[in-house]
């Protein structure tokens, strides 16, 4: 009887995949993503501005963020949290122009790029680098002050940029972002059709996702909103909102650039097919550590701070280490490679019979192995929202009314979350904060 049910499910899979593919595009939680979105190029014009973000506790919070100026029309968009993900190329000189349109009381603004050799010109000298002053302090005929940061990234990898002026407050307010340096060429021995994070074939990946971690103490944002900047005291810092790529759960499941989150353009919705390699670009942009736990398999940490973990130059990530939990360290970046085949399950995730052909990248030793559990009757248990009704990948099954329904393509959901469990809230409301899900999809479910 179990076998019969499996066959029925298998037959349904392809039909459902086609139907749900279209539905999935509209669906909350199944956005399309394979490469990290952001601003690609070598010349960027950033403007520091005030704006407001939405948090999943239903609040709206004042931020200071970097807005990007469109290179063609010259119009500047809204500030965003986090700042634009800047995607550049190794050995190509990067020029970033910064203007200050923050409220006068916010003072000057600047950017530091840890790990880069930066030449800064214009503006005034500050504690860490050149700073752009607000227009109010400039002579009336001075025009807009611009600071120009120039650097040539000599090594590919994942980096971060943060404010270098009153960095505690300006980072808290949102003046930070990711910097991704792509290799200039395919590494030795690599194939041109594949993607690599570093100049070594062992940094190959099929999909990449950004995990840029930050936190907020909303009381400080209230003080800034009321222009009581003198009252801001970071010795009383007590964050209650936590973000991945500038959104908290469940907002981070929605697609990139959704219109209802105009100042939070980036989502966090990793998806993959079994057998693929997923690169997680992991960045600590705030001031606290967050132990992120990647359910489903061990990852390999291949690089830290934009440098492969190598025993010697050119050796590749031979000192990579495996774990399931890694802390985001403030100001630090790490590159993790994660994969999933279902190998450890010990049964066939597709519900094949031994004579069936293999799926692409299927873990062959499990082929045709039966599902080891007799499923309880439909109405005997309560199902989670992400259960498709079938234990098989891409499968669909009957669910009682009111159960499930958030898993359009019958994928496997693995929770990728902070193990500091109080961070799974948004201002004390659960679930929120640092919760995300990797969805392993059936090979027939298109992701890109």
């Amino acid at each position, binding site marked *: 009887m179990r076998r019969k049910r499996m066959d029925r499910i298998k037959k349904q899979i392809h039909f459902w995949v086609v139907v749900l593919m279209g539905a999935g595009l509209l669906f909350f939680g199944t956005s399309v993503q394979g490469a990290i979105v952001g601003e690609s190029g070598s010349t960027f014009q950033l403007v520091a501005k005030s704006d407001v973000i939405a948090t999943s506790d239903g609040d709206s919070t004042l931020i200071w963020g970097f807005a990007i100026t469109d290179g063609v029309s010259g119009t500047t968009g809204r500030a965003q949290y986090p700042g634009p993900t800047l995607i550049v190329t190794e050995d190509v000189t990067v020029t970033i122009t910064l203007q200050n349109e923050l409220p006068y009381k916010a003072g000057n603004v600047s950017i530091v790029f*840890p*790990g880069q050799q930066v030449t800064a010109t214009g503006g005034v000298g500050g504690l860490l680098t050149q700073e752009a002053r607000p227009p109010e302090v400039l002579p009336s005929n001075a025009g807009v002050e611009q600071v120009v940061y120039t650097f040539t990234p000599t090594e590919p990898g994942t980096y971060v940029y943060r404010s*270098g002026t009153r*960095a505690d407050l300006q980072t808290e307010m949102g003046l930070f972002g990711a910097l991704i340096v792509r290799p200039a060429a395919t590494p030795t021995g690599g194939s041109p059709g594949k993607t690599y994070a570093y100049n070594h074939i062992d940094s190959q990946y099929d999909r990449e996702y950004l995990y840029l971690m930050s936190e907020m103490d909303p009381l400080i944002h209230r003080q800034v909103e009321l222009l009581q900047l003198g009252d801001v005291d970071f010795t009383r810092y007590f964050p209650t909102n936590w973000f991945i790529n500038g959104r908290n759960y469940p907002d981070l499941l929605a697609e990139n650039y959704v219109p209802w989150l105009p100042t939070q353009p980036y989502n966090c919705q990793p998806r993959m097919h079994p057998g693929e390699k997923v690169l997680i670009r992991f960045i600590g942009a705030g*001031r606290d*550590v967050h132990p992120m736990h990647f359910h489903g398999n061990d990852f390999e940490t291949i690089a830290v*701070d934009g*440098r492969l973990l190598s025993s*010697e130059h050119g050796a590749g990530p031979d000192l990579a280490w495996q774990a399931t939990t890694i802390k985001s360290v*403030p100001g630090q970046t790490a590159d993790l490679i994660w994969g999933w085949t279902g190998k450890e399950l010990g049964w066939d995730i597709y519900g094949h019979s031994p004579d069936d052909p293999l799926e692409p990248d299927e873990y062959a030793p499990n082929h045709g192995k039966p599902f080891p559990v007799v499923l309880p009757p439909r109405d005997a248990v309560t199902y989670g929202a992400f259960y498709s009704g079938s234990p098989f990948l891409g499968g669909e099954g009957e669910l009682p009314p009111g159960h499930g329904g958030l898993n359009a393509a019958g994928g496997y959901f693995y929770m990728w979350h902070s193990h500091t469990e109080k961070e799974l809230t948004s201002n004390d409301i659960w679930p929120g904060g640092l919760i995300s899900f990797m969805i392993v999809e059936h090979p027939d479910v298109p992701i890109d």
Partner: protein
Amino acid sequence: MFSKKMIRFQGFSLFLCLLAFMVGKTFAAEYWVQVDTADMTMVDGKKVPVWGFGLDRDKNFLTTDDYTISVPGPTLRVDPGDNTLIIHLKNNLSEPISLNILGQRLTNNSGPVWTNFPSDTQTWSGSRPAENYTARVRSFTHETLPGEVGEYRWESFRTGTFLLQSGTNPAKQVQMGMYLPIIKDAAQGSAYADVPYDEELIVVFHEVDPAIHRAIAAGTYGAVPDATIGSSIGRAPKYFLINGMSYPSEGLLPINGKMILLKGARLLIRFLNAGLDTHVPQLSESYIALWAEDGNRYLYPRETYGFELDTGKTVDAILVSPEGPPWKKHLYDARLNLNNDGVSPGGMLSFIKSSLPDHR
């Protein structure tokens, strides 16, 4: 030019060396250390009571006032050839103290010391007193009582960078300031095997919660009658210090004094966290190579511009001077503890400088 006094001192040292040879003993590093109360002036001018270490200059505890208490305490060194460290400890506080070096085995340790908490009227040394399930450990190592002199010997001292702390009621005495760096090189100019260096910089991160310091100094902290602060559970530091200073203290600008680092020169930076919070030392303009952790040399160095430095941890890093002087690289806490009692900028912000030589 040497003064007469120095010549006499050198002669005396030579005599001691010869004496040591004659009795056939290995050399030992020996220090006379005073523990006392002091007032530490924060960068905003406010004074905070501290307990700290100071070197007794005449090495006999006979004269008073020949020591200066500092937080962190003075850096102690054990020469590469020495296996033994001896510290004579004079306790000028009104409660027992002891010493503990994280990662080193104290040879003459008869501790831990147990007490009948909370009255502290009776003590036991070594194992838990028989059939007594309420006694608590007060000290990790044998105690030096108020007014007394104790001796602490480490007879197989390991190479590396270490943190010496109070071993008595550490939650209280360590945060009051009882810590210092203690260092043993593998060889002259070499921190570990194949980790040579030309210049050295010691960077101790620590924090101060003045309210707790004041309560401790007033005797109203902890399990005492009329306590104003019962424990450190609500500790909220107001000062974020590097080597006892915070921005804009002159001693942090630069933090390495006048140092001429030519192109390729190797600056060894010994990072220690003597505080109770995690810090993230970051050089935003430079990579460094991490070579050792808690006195253990890595098999391979790790190239990074910052790293997590947890409480009680030491990390040794090499910064290779990228060019001749002058240059300047900022060193700060990437956790952004950049204020002094809530006033910004301040806190753990400094820079390392390579200075041009003086014109003569």
